[in-house]
């Protein structure tokens, strides 16, 4: 078998566009899932059962069903009612999915911050919620970075699943090129290499963040 990368070169701009879409989606999902996960965790720990039980059910639901199914559900389910661009559905779907996983992490790390921290803050005169905001959450966040980083690395790879609902990310972008060039392996190799590079960059970023915060425990 002979490799011929000329088609890849021809369609390289299309692939780059796909990387761009994937990156934008990933950024939006990262923001949504980290902030949302934090809010879900705080609410589910610090409020009563009436509020927290549905949230815990939400976490359980998203963690026990396949991502693709969740995307189809949102895309075709919501499509019945309103017209939403596939990319928005994709961001929401991936966002909720990883929000559940991130909330699960935050719930553990928030609970791991010692009661002494809470009491020290209260004894200075801070109220319950300000203590959570200034003292508990930042420490929990720092402790969450390694696992959040792992989740976000998984999430970036999962953006490829959005091709199933027609989001023009990297895999989707390659499909047309493959279908006209009949050079699937060349494209797959290049795309894999692109994911690999993104992965490495993210791992470096994660390691840097961990170093920046390691002494703040």
């Amino acid at each position: 078998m002979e490799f011929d990368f000329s088609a890849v070169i021809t369609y390289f701009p299309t692939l780059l566009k796909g990387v761009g879409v994937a990156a934008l989606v990933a950024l939006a999902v990262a923001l949504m899932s980290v902030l949302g996960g934090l809010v879900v965790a705080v609410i589910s720990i610090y409020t009563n059962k009436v509020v927290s039980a549905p949230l815990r059910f939400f976490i359980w639901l998203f963690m026990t069903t396949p991502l693709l199914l969740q995307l189809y559900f949102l895309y075709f389910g919501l499509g019945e009612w309103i017209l939403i661009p596939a990319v928005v559905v994709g961001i929401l779907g991936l966002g909720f999915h990883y929000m559940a996983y991130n909330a699960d992490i935050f719930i553990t790390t928030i609970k791991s911050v010692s009661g002494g921290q809470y009491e020290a803050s209260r004894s200075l005169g801070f109220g319950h919620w300000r203590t959570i905001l200034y003292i508990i959450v930042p420490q929990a966040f720092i402790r969450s970075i390694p696992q959040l980083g792992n989740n976000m690395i998984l999430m970036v790879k999962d953006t490829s699943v959005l091709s199933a609902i027609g989001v023009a990310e990297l895999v989707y972008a390659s499909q047309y090129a493959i279908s006209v060039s009949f050079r699937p392996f060349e494209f797959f190799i290049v795309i894999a290499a692109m994911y690999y590079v993104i992965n490495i960059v993210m791992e470096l970023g994660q390691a840097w963040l961990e170093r920046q915060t390691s002494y703040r425990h």
Partner: protein
Amino acid sequence: MSTEQQTATPMVEVRNVHKRFGNLEVLKGINLTVDRGKIISIIGPSGSGKSTLLRSVNNLEVIDDGVILLDGVQVNRPDMKGMAFERHINHIRQNMGMVFQHFNLFPHMSTIDNVTLAPRKLKGMDKKAARELGMEQLERVGLAEKADVFPNWLSGGQKQRVAIARALAMKPKVMLFDEATSALDPELVEEVNQVMRSLADEHMTMLIVTHEMSFARDVSDWALFMDGGVVVEESAPDKLFSNPDQERTRNFLQKHLENNK
């Protein structure tokens, strides 16, 4: 209010305080008065209720019965509920500094931020003024050069001194110390004691729970021996530590001497 009355109002007053954990009554009717500028030490065996009493003073423990007053204002308010009580107690606590056995510095903030967080967020002090205030307090405990260091890099003694500076930054009316040196290596105890002595020289009102008898004897104006949730004996420190009236006090001091030989 006349000046006479003002000087007559104790800084802290504890009246007939009871506290139960489930079926276990830990405080069985405690009475205690700390006058302005005075230092009171509480000693007693482990489990006698010293920490619970101190924590009750700033409502970290909610008492079941009795009254606690700070400078004439009632701290515990069984009549108040929800947000109203939260506002009340947050305000009260701004006037009481608490120092814990395990320091409880905020590890995600630099030393200076530990000290200035409360003045900035609770008193609305701007960054520059807060930094000045913070540096002042750090100088007071001899750690100005550690201002931008994170707690993780400090020794236990230094951590506790920063914790004291953090409490002092709110200009409290009274300082509460719960075994401030118990978690420290022996060679680090003296630097913390020295800071507490300097506060005594400045006539800071202090309520000190300690197991360091000679320090308590040196620094206090009045000393209490607690056992089993009651104040067994109280007197001037010289008397309490060398010539107590009660058999239980004598036994405790005797045991303590033997253990520290």
